[in-house]
């Protein structure tokens, strides 16, 4: 049976080649959307690592001088930042407040590659950041007084970075910047300071639910050391139910405290929506276009199969006359379609498997990739099967007598 269907497919190779080509391209289209969807879905179910509800972001713009002048000015800036922070805490509506280079959902990333192999996103935060963001330390500890005046720089990292640096070993107490792994320029530097890992986070996904999984490190900003800079943002946890009226009051107070700085207040929940939209909007647009493409392919396929059934009336009629049941005719037409689909999809899979080898689509892990291939295959088979139903049914309606007297 199978061999026979293959032969039938081969006999009409020109038109079948064209259908195969169409299915092949459709597979690529479906796959490209599915791989993105699976990637986002996979990221979405990973833990976020913080609580964004009732937290406000206050972006602080400090016009800084550059070079030596900046260093000279820095202690005053830090002092003023401390005053701003204290002023914010005075309000009854504020539960806690902390400084950070970047709060979650803020645009921009501080990317750090201080060893030869490992790159991660960094942040420098003040001690209260843990309470504001409700961060959960899974091993080790948060920053504290014991870090004051220490010979090392304390750092807290996420599991991903710990794995990249130390595999399955316990990273606590180990350096994030091992001297022997540093770039040649930094290695000989006399100013080398160990960045010691003191705590481990499950994760901290600064760029939100859809963002890629990447190493993350939090450094301590004690607002007292000569190396500390005034953070670019304030994270403020407010009482639930606080409204925009308080925003205005808060802003007036901040502006009174630091006249030549600029402040912008925005709830994290709103920033989250905006940032997530940047992932979901293109995704929706792609899906919409791909969906229409598939409807188009489906309709085209129905048309082509229908036409081919009408053309093969004689052949089908002869089979019926020789005793083939309706079911067998039905199976034959669907079987042929299945073989054509398999050919197209197989070539598609072969092509798609090359992408990771070529380094394209580097963001998807093998697991995401495998899932995407399976889902895409299922969708393509479902599409062709649905398109084949009507023409196959039509084929079973062929009356042997009608078909044979055709000529």
């Amino acid at each position, binding site marked *: 049976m199978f061999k026979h269907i293959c032969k039938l497919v081969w006999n009409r190779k020109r038109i079948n080649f064209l259908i195969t080509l169409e299915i092949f391209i459709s597979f690529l289209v479906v796959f490209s959307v599915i791989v993105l969807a699976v990637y986002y879905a996979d990221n979405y179910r990973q833990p976020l690592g913080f609580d964004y509800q009732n937290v406000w972001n206050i972006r602080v713009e400090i016009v800084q001088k550059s070079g030596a002048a900046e260093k000279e000015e820095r202690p005053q800036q830090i002092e003023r930042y401390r005053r701003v922070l204290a002023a914010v805490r005075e309000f009854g509506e504020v539960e806690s407040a902390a400084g950070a280079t970047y709060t979650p959902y803020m645009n921009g990333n501080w990317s750090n590659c201080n060893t030869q192999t490992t790159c991660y996103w960094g942040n420098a935060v003040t001690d209260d950041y843990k309470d504001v963001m409700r961060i959960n330390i899974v091993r080790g500890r948060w920053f504290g007084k014991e870090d004051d005046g220490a010979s090392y720089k304390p750092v807290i990292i996420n599991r991903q970075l710990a794995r990249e640096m130390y595999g399955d070993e316990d990273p606590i107490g180990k350096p994030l910047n091992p001297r022997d792994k540093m770039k040649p320029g930094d290695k000989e530097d006399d100013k080398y300071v160990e960045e010691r890992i003191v705590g481990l986070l499950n994760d901290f996904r600064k760029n939100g639910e859809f963002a890629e999984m990447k190493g993350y490190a939090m450094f301590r900003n004690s607002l007292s050391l000569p190396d500390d800079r005034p953070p670019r943002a304030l994270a403020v946890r407010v009482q639930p139910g606080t409204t925009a009226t308080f925003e205005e009051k808060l*802003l007036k107070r901040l502006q009174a405290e630091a006249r030549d700085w600029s402040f912008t207040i*925005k709830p994290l929940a709103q920033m989250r929506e905006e940032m997530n939209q940047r992932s979901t909007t293109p995704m929706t647009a792609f899906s919409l276009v791909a969906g229409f493409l598939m409807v188009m392919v489906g309709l085209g396929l129905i048309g082509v199969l229908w036409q081919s059934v009408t053309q093969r009336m004689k052949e089908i009629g002869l089979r019926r006359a020789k005793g083939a049941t309706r079911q067998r005719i039905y199976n034959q037409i669907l079987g042929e379609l299945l073989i054509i689909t398999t050919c197209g999809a197989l070539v598609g899979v072969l092509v798609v498997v090359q992408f990771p080898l070529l380094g394209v689509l580097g963001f998807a892990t093998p697991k995401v990739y495998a899932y995407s291939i399976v889902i895409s295959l299922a969708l393509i088979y479902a599409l062709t099967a649905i398109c084949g139903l009507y023409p196959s049914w039509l084929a079973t309606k062929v009356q042997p007598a009608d078909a044979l007297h055709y000529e």
Partner: protein
Amino acid sequence: MGDIGSTRSLPLPVPYQNRVLMLKNYLKIAFKVFLRRKFFTFISLFAISFTLVVLMVAAAFLDHTFAPHAPENKQDRTLGVFFMEMKSPNDDSTWNGTAGYGFLDRYVRTLPNVERVSIFSEPDLIHSYQNGEKIPAYIKRTDGAFWQILEFNFLEGVPFTETDDKNANAVAVINEATRKKFFGSDTAVGKTIEADGQNFRVVGVVANVPFLRQIPFSDIWVPISTIKNDSYKKELMGNFIGLIQARSAADFPAIQDEFKARLPQVEFPDPKEWSKLRGTPETYFNSIAREFFGGNKDHSKTYGGKLWAAIILAMLLFMLLPTVNLININVSRIMERASEIGVRKASGASSWALVGQFIVENVILTLFGGVIGFIISRFVLRVITESGWFPYAEFQMNYRIFLYGLFLAVLFGLLSGVYPAWKMSRLNPVQALKGASR
């Protein structure tokens, strides 16, 4: 020979009417065929119009973002200094971003042989409060020349001037939407608005400028000198953009050369920290292309051509699936026409005449689909415009997009018509008359 429709072998002095008659016949046959199998005509039209909708909406987007629209009427002779790159002496630190005011003021504003140079900041989101309500707005800090290079449509008042910028006058130009948020339906000139903790007197109101036009876009425009702290005046890198208006596009290379010649002379405040600066004055499209293809890397090249190639490639790739789909439908329908082809062949029509006829038929179908696509595109663009996803966007059809759509429809018709037409023309007349399959 009964040459009904040969397009090729006819001698030159063709009676013109014959051609017209022939085309008329093709049209007649085409419409008969379209109406005969309505389901197939529907599938074909669906595929064609959908494809053209996607491509036309994409084109409207690009047109909206890059084509010369008001206020950028002088786009063909302006260059911008958008992205710069600063490096440390041994190249291990790089600062990519927009230029600083200090650099632009000292080295770009003084460029010879240009008509005007404007410096302005990137738009910055701020919030104002009015009666306990929060009003978000973008603010852009500009100089006086900004209003001369860009030709805004003033609904009320006038722009601020060079003198306002020199004296740090707290004046502002706002757009229509901001006027509505602050003052409802009243006029705004002479009144005061609060923005970023400062009070500005409104001197002019302009029509809204779309968000995607990054050079002119903002809600509120105020003089640069109203920045609270004046340390920006010395910055080499910062958040400013320089816009150079040349006499004509022919001057571009000379301006770019002069700009490059000046870069090594830039004085760095701390040469041990930063000592090299690179950049190119270029058109907005080229600067976006540079960002797109790996950022600042090579300032001796422009990347605009590459981006064009990428856009055209993406367009063709997108058309691939619909084309194959249409070819499939057309090929499978050849036999429907077998007897017609047989008759025509038997009565002496050449293969070429048949190919011509079928291609014309297909192009007519795609043009028809194009018309439907055009109508749907207008609808889709209106939905996108009204959705407010892109502030102040006004996506519209214009003659450029119409011509482009027409071109696409014909191209699509040719691409999807050639192979089936060729196959049809090769039918053996005897078999065709018999109505044989395969």
